[in-house]
């Protein structure tokens, strides 16, 4: 994963995962419409289909009072969790790790359920949990001692343009040349 594209994809996934978790983990049950509008129900049907489950996750039910917002939020969630450069299975692993790390009861249970539904076994779950736990250790050791990044030279900079765009002329000439980049992991 030397190119930037999968890392952009992962970062967008982390953001949307956290956005869903913060709403689902807050005491906002009272916001769930008793009788969702037809527009909201239409979105709910897509959500049920995507997750292959009868119940719509609370993160979506709680914003259903504004069907337009629900539709956009759902569209963003579906976009980031759909197979792309990263598989949906791997994305669920990332979302599970994010949810455990941020102590999100909703996210942890939901993404654990999704991992299992997508065929990840107990060993696979433990592997993700192990990495999550180990790097929750390293990060706090690093922060306590205020360590500075020192592994930036491991991978080259990706000079490819933004999707659909063109590389700046000055960069096009440099393409392929190894340069330091910001660290990807401790």
């Amino acid at each position, binding site marked *: 994963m030397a190119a930037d594209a999968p890392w952009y994809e992962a970062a967008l996934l982390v953001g949307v995962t956290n956005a869903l978790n913060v709403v689902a983990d807050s005491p906002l049950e009272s916001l769930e419409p008793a009788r969702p509008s037809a527009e909201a129900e239409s979105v709910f049907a897509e959500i049920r289909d995507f997750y292959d489950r009868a119940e719509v996750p609370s993160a979506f039910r709680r914003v259903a009072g504004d069907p337009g917002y629900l539709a956009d939020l759902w569209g963003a969630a579906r976009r980031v969790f759909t197979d792309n450069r990263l598989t949906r299975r791997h994305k669920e692993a990332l979302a599970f790790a994010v949810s455990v790390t941020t102590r999100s009861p909703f996210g942890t249970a939901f993404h654990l359920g999704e991992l299992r539904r997508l065929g990840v076994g107990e060993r696979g779950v433990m592997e993700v949990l192990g990495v999550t736990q*180990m790097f929750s250790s390293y990060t706090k050791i690093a922060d306590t001692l205020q360590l500075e990044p020192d592994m930036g030279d491991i991978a080259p900079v990706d000079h490819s343009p933004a999707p659909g765009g063109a590389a700046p002329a000055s960069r096009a000439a440099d393409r392929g040349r190894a340069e330091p980049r910001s660290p990807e992991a401790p």
Partner: protein
Amino acid sequence: MPTVRLRDASEYPKPTQKLFEVAKSWFNYDFAEPPAMSRVMAWDPELGALHGRAMKRAMTPGEWTRAEKEMVAAVVSGVNACNY
């Protein structure tokens, strides 16, 4: 700036320096000095060895590839707002 003085690899006992060779091999990269985290973990070689083994066990390819696991590690570091 670190709150402690990070010792050079040469300041560690010889047996501990072997751990740095393991780290170099793990990252497949020839560091001028071992990464700061490796040198911190080597401060207590007993803990460093146990923690390091647990980390390697967690990062070894299994149901997920090493690359997939590195990305899990990166997002965990990101949400922990860890600059290192």
